[in-house]
């Protein structure tokens, strides 16, 4: 889609939306938001950019393969669940501690895992389209 307005604004919006997604992720514990919603916003940022500049350009904005994000997300979530075991508490008990004056808890880390997994999975689907399109386009043209 070749509209000047979309092309120009999407670059700004991309950054803004990514920031918003991280913001939503971290405020989620107390205000509306959370890992799932944050991840959807982040995917939205990429989808918007892809509409304006094409999937190939959007893909270049992610330094690693999105499927790796899925793996990392699941690992982070799993590790956050295991922490309690080492303190002799049942699996997935929330453990809260203070890091540089900021209250951090394993549920928040778990939410980061949710964020990464959902983000990676949806982006994999999105970028998969591009890989199909590359050869599909050649065939068509």
């Amino acid at each position, binding site marked *: 889609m070749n509209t000047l307005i979309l092309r120009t604004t999407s670059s700004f919006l991309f950054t803004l939306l990514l920031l918003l997604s991280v913001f939503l992720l971290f405020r989620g*514990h107390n205000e509306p938001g*959370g890992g799932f919603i944050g991840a959807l916003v982040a995917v939205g940022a990429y989808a918007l950019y892809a509409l304006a500049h094409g999937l190939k350009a959007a893909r270049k904005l992610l330094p690693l393969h999105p499927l790796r994000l899925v793996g990392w997300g699941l690992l982070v979530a799993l590790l956050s669940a295991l922490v309690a075991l080492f303190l002799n508490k049942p699996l997935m008990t929330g453990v*809260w501690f203070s890091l540089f004056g900021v209250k951090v808890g394993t549920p928040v880390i778990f939410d980061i895992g949710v964020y990464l997994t959902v983000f*990676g*999975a949806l982006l*994999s689907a999105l970028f*998969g389209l591009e*890989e*199909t399109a590359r050869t599909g386009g050649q065939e*068509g043209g």
Partner: protein
Amino acid sequence: MVTSVLVAFAGALGAPWVYRGLGNRAGWVLALLPLGLTLYFSSLLPAVLAGQTLRHGVAWVPSLGVGLSFYLDGLSLLFALLITGIGTFIVIYSGGYLKGHPDLGRFYLVILLFMASMLGLVLADNIVTLFVMWELTSLTSYLLIGFNHTEFRSRRAATQALFVTAGGGLALLAGLILLAGMGGSWEISELLTKGEVLRAHPWYLGALVLVLVGAFTKSAQFPFHFWLPNAMEAPTPVSAYLHSATMVKAGVYLLARLQPALGGTEVWSSTLMAFGLATLLTGATLTFRQTDLKRLLAYSTVAALGALVFAIGAVPLTSYYGAVGFAAFLLAHSLYKGGLFMAAGAVDHEVGTRDVSQLSGLFRAMPITGVAVGLSALSLAGLPPVLGFIGKEALYAAFLEAAPAWMTGLAVLGFAVGVTLALILTVPFFRGQPPEGVHEGSPSLWLGPVVLAGLGLLVGLFPGLYNPLADAVASAVKGAPVAYHLKLWHGLNLPLLLSLVTVLLGVGLYFLYPRLLAWMAREPIPGPESAYVGLMRGLMRFSGKLERLLQSGSLRAYLVWTFMGLVALVGLALLRGDGLLWPQLQGLHPGQAVLLALMLLSALAALRLRSHLATVVVVGIVGAGVAIVFLLQNAPDLAITQFLVETLTAVLIALVLLQIRRIGAVPRGRFLDKLVALSFGGILTLLMLAMLAQPMSPHLAQFFAEKSLPEGFGRNIVNVILVDFRGLDTFGEITVVGLAGLGVYALLKGLRKEGKP
């Protein structure tokens, strides 16, 4: 104890890096892990021999009775020592045997993982822990048997072993759950004290059969024995470890462990003795069809496992011989079989063949291996002065006390084949000329066989060394204190006479071996394996038919199946429930009315529009309307999610439409489509109405509202529920999301490959 198992798992995970760093010397270094564990368990010997049982555990999911709890008595200690001790030599041996193999790092990883799971299995007190470890040994052994994954035969053998043992594992799971229900505890140590309750329970027979199926498949008992010889496709270190001392003994371990709780009934003893004897004879008979060293050993393992099961069945019927014979024979068999397997692999490695008819004069070429084979073969034959003799004598005493004469006679016949096999194995070492250029392998190849054979001799000469532990093992199996004096010479008695008969029979059979071989190897004998093959073939045919029916490749057909399936299930639930109900509805606000009208209009428009993009937009309006309804009902989280999902769906469809350029107008709905859409929408409406008609319980909402801040430290109740209260569900859900992403990606990638000319 918990730490030792965790250390074993952690060490296994680190193995590939150690290999990458150290290369060919990694085997010696990695062996420090099992060696350290052996020393640790040895340090617990004094406490256990003093009659203590050690228990240690951490909570895992206490609300479900699942704990990571471990229990150490004589029986589990002997197994732990065998697993880690033999494991040490196996790791060293692998370094020499698989030297330079490109996947050696992965091999270390899996075999150490196997060791850790096996250790967890024999130490487990909690039933769930036991089962998880049990399945882990099945999975890791699948990877180990199929290690040469480019060969069809090893893949087939690995799959067969997995199907048989994991299928039995399912039966075991059901049996264990029944046991826990009957005894009212998830801890084995507590179930052992409730034997009377368990045996008198109406579910006793069902639970027993299920547990036996699990144990019999794992320990290759008749009629499930066929997977074990086929598993010889595995690299020799695997056979030496899994198929001598450890995995195949897991079933035997479980039976011995549960003997005090389940044993003592007529059905227990007669079943175990019957199947044990059948297995012993099957293994012994089929020996005469083989000339391959490893397969010969595999059938002898089948026979030995049968003897062990027989002994466990005899435990309640004998004063103490059954339990003592079990303890002595178990150690003897693990030592000589592990050593013989490793020696067979060394011979194969140096000579290049495992066919006994092609081997000759090896003693001059490989004297160290020769000595080890000779000593182990003595134990296999059950001759003095090695441990195998003591074990067999005790077993004979048990059979004489517990079993009818004809059973004992058949058992003697089975053991006679052990003598024959010992001759078959040792004669090639002394007969004829050595092949050219064959020499002793590296120390890593002969160290294990020599030490294991040496131990067998040492304990045979000085049975007092093993006596205290044997008593502890026997007490654990018997469920009552046992004190017995192990010795080589008991004077002239009936067991000694039987031993003599065994040797004579065995030597006689050895001279018949070439003729028996020619006769038995001529045609395939139909056995339980044919049933397995038939079952698998039928399963494939059935799934092929099912696939053609369900997986036609048409997206439309999938949607019809999915939606109509849901309609049927929900409809059935509604019919069986309270039926159709009409809730009390409140009036609509003007705002809500306008919203609903808009949504209805969009939905109708979607039916009429012929442009794909426009259809996406109007369907999006319906979704956005739903989101606004959520917002009006004070559910901001739901509303945000709904908005985002709608937006993303629209964008994704738009992107897809951009990619697919040649696309016509939306086709008019067919009759079937209309029917599916109407019934799915209709059934969901009925479901919603029925749900609204139910009185809403404020209990849960109240609980979460009250506990969210003090226990979850969050003010957003929805989020706290997702990541804390119901975190396990969320974890399952994100796993599904991740897998779905992977699936979509793989599908699209597959399309690309097919699209390439």
